[in-house]
Structures are given as structure tokens and as C-alpha cells.
């Protein structure tokens, strides 16, 4: 289907072929790191209704390296939204100024709603707990770079699978490929939502829900770790009881396959022990660096220009 002129709301809007095209171009930008004039005449709006550092800076860097002008804001404070303007009206304003709108919002469905209002393409940079397609793109690109494939590997997605949009999007992204198996590792309270599990079933992906990483550590090729937040637990004692099962330590990694790689959308708090950073398993800093080339590739493909 291609990318040109399209909205990017969910990773499920794309095919494997689309993603492979994206990876190819991201790889080009990765090895040809310089500034371009491809988007010289374009204005990219970064509408971050919810605060963000990593995703916003990565989009901003990507847009600027392509030569685009960047406008935007980073929280509702100080915008007319804080004065009671509707989200719809703010999007209409940005649509009048920009050629492409990147939206992050705390409500699920905000990006789709923005896309229905705006005439220009909208990229979802995170809507509530639902989607974070560009994160999934860079996560899958990382695996593609590290293993030369996404197919045939055993994955464990670990942590908050219920409220974490990066985890949900990563799971959705895997369903576009042919993983050998996907383990969903979470406390019972934070299991993947029914609509996420349903996609795994519809696409015939072999998956299994587990309660601790320990149970699957020796089997997996990729571990995708996300944060388990204390605030999610109505009972703090329950959090204290389970948190150890989701902490990645050197001791746990003794049982891992040599080539096993750990990914994390970052920022992390204490779910990965800092001692793990210097092991051959740690891939999360590499992954974070891929954010810019992947977003450069996405912006170029949507606008329809190639280097």
C-alpha cells in the first residue's frame, strides 16, 4: 500500500512489505548520517499534548535533518487548550500551518480523531495506552538489524502489557511477521488487553501468558522489557510482591541464550539492573539511537521523497 500521504495511527495499518521498505530507507539514513534538503519546503508540527522528551526530540531531530521547519508545543499548559479550546480546534489550527502533524495525547483515539479532522497526514506519537506505531517501527527495525530478520524468533514481552502502549504496539507489530512464539510476561493485573490478544489469535501467532521472566529466560531470543508502575496496583503490597519477577538482573541472565537481546522503549527506572548495560545482551541504547533514522525514513516516505 505504501506510505505516501498516509496517516500513521496504528502499526496494524501497515504490511510487512511496507515495514521492509521503511527499514531499507532507515538503514540508508543510518549509514549516511548527514543533513538533507528533502523536506526543505515542509512544515512539521509536533503537537505533544502530553509531555515527552525522547519521542519528541527524536521526531524533531529527524525533521530537522531532513530540512523541514518544525513548529509545536510540548504540553497543554500555555496552549489555548489550557484555556478550554477543544482538541479538534487545535488540530484545525495546526492543519492550517503544517504539512504533517505529529500528535501525542493522553486519550486513546486522539490521533485517529485528529486524522479525521486534518487534511494533512497525522502521525500518532502515542495515544493513551493504545498505540505508539513509530516506537514499534524502531523496535522492529532494531531486531531486523540485530538478527537480520524478525521471523522465526522467540520473543518475551515483559512488564505492563495492559497500560503500556509501547508493549501493545510491539505485540501488534510482531503479528505482521512470523515469530516462532511470543510470551506475554506480566502480573495478572497487567495482562495484555482483550483486543490485543484477539489480534494475536486472528493472525495465528503462537503465544502464551506467563507470570515471570524466569520461566522463559532460557528459551527466548528477544526480551522486550517495559516498566511495571507502582501506581497501577490498587494494593501496594501486591506491587512489592510481584516487582522482583520483572526485574532483569545479571543472575537472571545466566540462563539466557548467548545471542539473546534485551530491548526497552526507555526511559527505564529500575526494571533493568545497570550492571546489565555492559553485557552483550543489552540492545536498548542501540535501539534508542535508531529512533532518528527510522523517523527520518517515515517522514520521507509519507511526503513521498527519497534521497
Amino acid at each position, binding site marked *: 500500500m505504501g506510505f505516501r500521504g498516509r496517516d500513521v495511527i496504528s502499526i496494524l495499518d501497515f504490511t510487512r512489505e511496507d515495514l521492509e521498505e521503511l527499514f531499507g530507507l532507515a538503514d540508508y539514513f543510518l549509514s549516511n548520517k548527514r543533513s538533507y534538503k528533502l523536506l526543505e519546503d515542509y512544515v512539521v508540527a509536533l503537537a505533544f499534548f502530553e509531555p515527552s522528551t525522547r519521542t519528541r526530540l527524536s521526531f524533531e531531530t529527524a525533521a530537522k535533518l531532513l530540512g523541514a521547519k518544525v513548529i509545536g508545543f510540548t504540553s497543554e499548559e500555555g496552549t489555548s487548550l489550557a484555556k478550554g479550546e477543544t482538541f479538534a480546534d487545535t488540530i484545525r489550527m495546526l492543519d492550517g500551518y503544517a504539512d504533517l502533524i505529529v500528535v501525542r495525547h493522553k*486519550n486513546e483515539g486522539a490521533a485517529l480523531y485528529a486524522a479525521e479532522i486534518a487534511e494533512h497526514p497525522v502521525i500518532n506519537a502515542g495515544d493513551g495506552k493504545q498505540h505508539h506505531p513509530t516506537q514499534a517501527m524502531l523496535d522492529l527495525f532494531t531486531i531486523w538489524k540485530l538478527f537480520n530478520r524478525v521471523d522465526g524468533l522467540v520473543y518475551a514481552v515483559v512488564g505492563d502489557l495492559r497500560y503500556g502502549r509501547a508493549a501493545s504496539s510491539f505485540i501488534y507489530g510482531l503479528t505482521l511477521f512470523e515469530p516462532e512464539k511470543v510470551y506475554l510476561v506480566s502480573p495478572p493485573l497487567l495482562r495484555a488487553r482483550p483486543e490485543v490478544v484477539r489480534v494475536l489469535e486472528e493472525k495465528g501467532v503462537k503465544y502464551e501468558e506467563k507470570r515471570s521472566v524466569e520461566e522463559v529466560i532460557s528459551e527466548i531470543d528477544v526480551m522486550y522489557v517495559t516498566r511495571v508502575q507502582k501506581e497501577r496496583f490498587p494494593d501496594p503490597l501486591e506491587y512489592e510482591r510481584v516487582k522482583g519477577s520483572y526485574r532483569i538482573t545479571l543472575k537472571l541472565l545466566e540462563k539466557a541464550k548467548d545471542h539473546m537481546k534485551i530491548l526497552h522503549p526507555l526511559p527505564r527506572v529500575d526494571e533493568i539492573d545497570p550492571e546489565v548495560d555492559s553485557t552483550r545482551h543489552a540492545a536498548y541504547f542501540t535501539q534508542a539511537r535508531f529512533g532518528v533514522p527510522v523517523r527520518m525514513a517515515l517522514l520521507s516516505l509519507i511526503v513521498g521523497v527519497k534521497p
Partner: protein
Amino acid sequence: MSPERASLTVSKIRDGTVIDHIPAGKALTVLRILSITGKEGLRTAVLMNVESRKLGRKDIIKIENRELSSKEVNAIALVAPTATINIIRNYVVHKKLRVEVPENIVGILRCPNPTCITNRPREPVTPRFKVTSKSPLVLQCVYCGTIIREDEIEKLLTA
């Protein structure tokens, strides 16, 4: 008492609508969907838990001088998928409608997810749902992806 005799206890209407084969106990929900409270002054008969050959028990509603829009018919399908609708003109059945669950539902329901964009106060966005299964009825919010099962639908009606 046969179903025919049960229905005879209410006189025939001249012009209006007869909604028959409503699952027993759902008549008041159907009235709610139609925004009929009794204050409109429409002559309305509600029969509840009458015998039915097809359903065992059923409810029937007769409303004089009121025909239904297709949006109302679709909404009835969500809570009373077995219902049949007869439009009566001059004492005879002018048109028979069978309710059918549509592919998409626009409005009518609110999304149960409090952080869905459709529940944002003052935001002019209409909830929209995709029907992912008709029997049992399963809906999915187009905006936030939340899955809604048949037994949750009634409490989400906004009508």
C-alpha cells in the same frame, strides 16, 4: 392463552408502529431507545412477558402515530435482535421491517473506556463502533479499540 388472544387485549392501532418479538423484559429498554417516556402524549401499549411460540416469552410495543427512523431500528437491533417491526397505516400493515445489526454503529452508545477520546468533555466527537461479531454481538470502539460484549451494551446506551 394463545399469543393471538394476548395481543387482542389491546385494540388495534390505526396508524403507527408495532414492535413484536422483543425478548422478554426488554420492552422498557426499547422505549428508552425511542425516547418514549409517556410525556409525548402518544397512545402506547406495552405488553410484557406474553407467550410466544418462537421465543417462549416476549414483549410487544404498540405506538400510535409514530414511525421509526432507520437509526432507531438499528439501535433496537442492539438490544432486541429478534424484534420485528410493522408499520401500520389505516389499520393494515403497510411495511414489515426486520431489525438487523449494522456493520457500524454511530452514536447510540458511549464507549466504556473513560480515557477514550469520545469521552473527553466538550469534544465534538461521535462514538463509533465496529460490529466484529453479530452472534453473539461483539462491538469494538473504532477510536480506542475497547471490545464491548453483548451484556454490556444496555448500560452503554445514550438514548
